[in-house]
């Protein structure tokens, strides 16, 4: 994949319902300033800025990076905008990596962001389009049939979805940036929460957040002399497939399987459950944990829920392959940043900078994002050692 590159700086905002203290500018600068400080760099050191977010309808600004050019310190520099639906935060990190891997730039600032409080996401994602049937269900309504199909195919018991939500929210208590901090949350409370889109309960869905996540990605030359620990990028991959196509497996999409195969090959991963120390996976609705466990090859088809059930993915239960130690998308979801956060959290783990939710001695981690109708996939593998 071209030249070696590494992440040497990461910055996140505190994720929350409504960040009324800052404008768009303030939000992205908060994350970017923290990432630059972590990398021990200044704005002048940056060669290129790659920025990603999900639909512009959410903030009501068309291509907002144009007006944010000064806030991004981009005057006279290249500024590049990515938009690949929910996977965009991951795709943005991949584009940033390629800017360095290609030999074109040495020091790239990558930012994923969304300020969801500026509108209502379900509305922004489901407008009435002439000549098309309206989809006023939002993302949850779209994915509920996929989840139902998974439960039917795998015979998974009802409590799995509840357990995932409980586990990720408990993980979130160890992450100061997480949106949802619910120390008193119980399995019972999730079970009794309203059924929004059967079988997805309110307690099993992601929140709607304001937030930004930034990373500094540099070439080997700069990573080698970096004062802060690098997370080396061992592989990146992306895949896309159609939303609707007869015969497409929407529960276990081929695009996700092929994307994983590609990134594992680049990183030399043959047994993901054994080779990875942890993973940050895009799970916006709790049932996607067992679904992606299977899609990403951590479990055989129909067996993913058993890993969740046994606590294999739980940091608190001492699982062998903890997923979403940060609390995941279920605890913070600024859509356009959510993929970037997964990629950044994976990097934090192998840098040993994840604080309270650190997996001890993590050396290799997987970052993952998906979007659209389970049709866009972006992944990277990061390690503490040079590839």
């Amino acid at each position: 994949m071209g030249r070696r590159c590494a992440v040497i700086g990461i910055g996140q905002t505190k994720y929350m319902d409504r960040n009324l203290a800052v404008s768009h500018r303030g939000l992205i600068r908060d994350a970017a300033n923290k990432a630059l400080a972590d990398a021990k760099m200044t704005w002048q050191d940056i060669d290129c800025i790659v920025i990603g977010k999900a639909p512009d309808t959410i903030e009501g600004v068309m291509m907002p990076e144009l007006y944010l050019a000064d806030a991004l310190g981009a005057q006279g520099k290249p500024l590049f905008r990515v938009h690949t639906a929910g996977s965009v935060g991951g795709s943005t990190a991949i584009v940033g990596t390629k800017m360095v891997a290609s030999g074109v730039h040495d020091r790239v600032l990558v930012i994923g962001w969304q300020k969801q409080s500026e509108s209502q996401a379900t509305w922004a994602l489901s407008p009435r389009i002439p000549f098309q049937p309206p989809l006023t269900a939002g993302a949850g309504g779209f994915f509920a049939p996929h989840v139902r199909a998974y439960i039917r195919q795998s015979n998974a018991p009802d409590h799995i979805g509840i357990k995932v939500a409980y586990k990720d929210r408990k993980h979130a208590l160890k992450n100061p940036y997480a949106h949802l901090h619910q120390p008193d949350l119980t399995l019972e409370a999730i079970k009794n929460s309203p059924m929004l889109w059967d079988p997805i309960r309110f307690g099993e869905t992601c929140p709607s957040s304001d937030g930004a996540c930034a990373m500094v990605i540099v070439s080997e030359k700069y990573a080698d002399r970096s004062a802060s620990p690098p997370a080396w990028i061992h592989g990146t991959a992306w895949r896309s497939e159609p939303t609707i196509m007869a015969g497409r497996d929407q529960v276990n999409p081929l695009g996700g399987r092929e994307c994983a195969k590609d990134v594992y090959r680049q990183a030399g991963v043959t047994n993901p459950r054994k080779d990875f120390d942890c993973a940050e996976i895009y799970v916006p609705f709790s049932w996607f944990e067992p679904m992606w466990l299977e899609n990403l090859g951590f479990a055989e088809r129909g067996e993913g829920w058993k890993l969740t059930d046994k606590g294999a993915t739980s940091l608190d239960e001492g699982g062998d392959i903890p997923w979403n130690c940060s609390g995941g998308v279920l605890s913070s979801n600024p859509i356009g940043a959510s993929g970037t956060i997964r990629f950044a959290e994976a990097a934090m783990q192998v840098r040993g900078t994840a604080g309270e939710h650190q997996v001890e001695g993590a050396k290799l981690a997987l970052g993952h994002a998906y979007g659209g109708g389970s049709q866009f996939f972006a992944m990277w593998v990061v390690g503490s050692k040079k590839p």
Partner: protein
Amino acid sequence: MRDIAIIAFAQSANKRNEQIYNEAEILAPVAREALQKAGLKKEEIDFTCSGSSDYLAGQPFSFVIALNAIGAWPPIQESHVEADAAWALYECWIAMQADESINTSLVYGFGKQSMGSPRDVMNILNDPYVETPLWCDTISMAALQGRALIDAGLATERDFAAVAARNLKHAKSNPKAQCKGDFTVDELLRSPTLASPLRKHDCPPITDGACVVILAAGDTAKKLCKRPAWIRGIDHRIDVQAIGRRDLTRAPSAQIAAEKAGVGAGKVDIAELHALFTPQDIILRKELGLASDCVINPSGGVHQGNPMMGTGLVRFGEVADRIIRGEANRGVAHATQGPCLQQNMVAVLEGK
């Protein structure tokens, strides 16, 4: 750096109002034509990237439906930019530089401006807290830029009209052109102003359309195309947006991009400029350092058709086509977005 070239280009006919087909339907035959020209099957494309705007289509994820025109099965390596498709071409170029297993790329852009009122829609491209409430539409902002040129003694309304007359004359040989014809400067100057000093002929038409470019690397390009249009330099830069903080007679980011792309390293035969308004043509010629013997906008430029979000990519295609056909040896393609030439991309294409 690997040698990467444009080997094929196709575009739809520029139309003021495409009432029958949606974006994906406009795009599908164009993609077919480009693949045919390149002699490739869609399965032989290693990477795909597109450029479009949700606000133009009036719906989130508008690019998802357009993907159906390309056919993403079995799953493909693909990405999308919320920008003019020239930036999608840049992403393909980067992907091909970063990964030697990517030997071919397909780039597409599409836009149906007729779905809304572009002059109004573009207002929300501005700072939402300070400028959008003032309702500074694109034509008014471009008029301020034209006025700045006149006030600085750098151009006159006659110069603007001459740019329009040249573009519309060139467009006569462009079978895809929406606007074309022979007009004298005096004739054009008799029309009323839309936003002084700009008249209708100074502004881009409203266009529905799509375009596709196919890139190939090294030996693959040579095998597929007799005379590929090699990308010898490509760069893009941005300036701050607020027009009150810029010298509107200049486009510093265009100048940096031109320098980095190496425009000045040789004679430029042709240049296709993404100058939406005629004053921008005058600014760009200077910033890019184009000599007087360089043929500007042989296709008719933006004034023959403006399929927004694809308009910049069309500039690349028009230059490449002329190199592929042997009509030019060295050409410059330019793309822009943001008000008053805020963000600019410049590339040098060569037949050798």
